[in-house]
């Protein structure tokens, strides 16, 4: 298969996933409000002292993105029925293209999740605007991509499993720790004027590692092999 053909398949899969999600509307109408309610509820449990909220705000945002945003990757429209999977196989779609396309679609939806919840975090927690804050845009993008990769992988290994709705998050949460720590530490680094390069390198490394594993295991993961 040529590279052009591979990327065309990636594009078609992502386009189809996004179109289906656009009609189903699960992310915008359910997952985003669910994340918003988490941001709203947490101060009720830990207190509403202003300086504390300002301090924990960015961390809360990334914590909520990880725990609730990952549900974007497990949305109904990101899982195929057996008939749909078999159709893709018979159409000669490279399973790696399905993995990449599906991850890109989820990453874009996660980006939407983050872009809506970030201003809400600013409103509710009022964290200080740090110098070099535009770096956070890159971080938000890398977190979305990393979470989409690990979520797509977990979604694939739990496809059709009855306990999927709780099992998939259990698999994803501990593996996403580097995303959580790096993203909050970049904010801390910017606030305290420390170097943020190691954290960005770590985020890039994680994205690269997950992409490589996802592409390499896509073929053997296909149901038809024995």
């Amino acid at each position, binding site marked *: *298969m040529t590279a052009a053909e591979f990327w*065309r*398949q990636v594009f*078609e899969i992502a386009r*189809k996933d996004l*179109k*289906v999600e656009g*009609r*189903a509307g699960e992310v915008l109408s359910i997952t985003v409000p669910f994340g918003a309610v988490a941001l709203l509820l947490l101060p009720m449990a830990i207190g509403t002292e202003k300086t504390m909220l300002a301090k924990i705000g960015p961390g809360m945002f990334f914590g909520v993105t990880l725990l609730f945003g990952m549900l974007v990757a497990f949305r109904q*429209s990101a899982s195929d*029925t*057996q*008939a*749909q999977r*078999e*159709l893709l*196989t*018979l*159409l*000669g*779609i*490279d399973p790696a293209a399905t993995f990449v396309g599906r991850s890109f679609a989820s990453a874009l939806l996660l980006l939407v999740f983050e872009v809506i919840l970030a201003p809400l975090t600013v409103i509710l927690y009022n964290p200080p605007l740090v110098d070099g804050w535009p770096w956070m845009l890159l971080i938000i993008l890398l977190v979305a991509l990393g979470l989409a990769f690990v979520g797509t992988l977990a979604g694939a290994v739990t496809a059709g499993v009855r306990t999927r709705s709780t099992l998939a998050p259990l698999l994803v949460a501990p593996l996403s720790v580097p995303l959580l720590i790096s993203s909050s530490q970049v904010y801390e680094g910017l606030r305290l004027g420390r170097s943020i390069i190691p954290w960005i390198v770590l985020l890039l490394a994680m994205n690269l590692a997950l992409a490589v594993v996802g592409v390499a295991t896509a*073929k053997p993961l296909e*149901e*038809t*092999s*024995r």
Partner: protein
Amino acid sequence: MTEALVQLEGVGVRFGRITVLRDVDLRVAAGEGVGIVGPNGSGKSTLLRVLATLLQPTDGHGTVLGAPLGKDTPPAVRRRISLIGHQPALYGELTLEENLGFVARLLGRSHDDVVKTLSKVGLGGALDRRADHSSHGMQRRVEFARVLMTRPDLLLLDEAHAGLDRHAAALVEATVATVKRRGGSVILVSHEPDRMLPLVERIYEIVDGTTVEGVPEP
């Protein structure tokens, strides 16, 4: 006899303790239609999935369109196989046109082809209907449109007639005839042989998990 597009020898499928198929021998020539009958749960659909290269057998060997079973089948071979199964392979949220369009773009076909083919199967007036708002018969017609577009060398139909009206049944017959005329093979699976008898040259019955050639006793 002409070249065999499908050849199975001693093929068996086991899932843990359960044996679904054993010692299945099957040979289907180019241009030939073969029917497979058997009661509910006898392994007809499993056999069809083996033939579609979607399930590797536990025992035995064989070839489908020249590709050996039990190894990874090249995508180029898979694109020459069409399967219409129990569940429609459609995306409920997409329209009928978008569903076929998705397949068309992956096969490198034009959008004109999509509209033309949907009109051919009698859905020209329902292009914008969402698949999950369409009836079972309409969904089936989209699947036949997909087959027409794929132009397969091996067509596999699982209970193709179930729940179809007179027109759709005629569509099944025309599609089968077209594939056979082009030199492809068609394998039909059904628990009621009557409707498929006119479409096939030979019939196999699945008895005790294995195939027996010949028209079954009514």
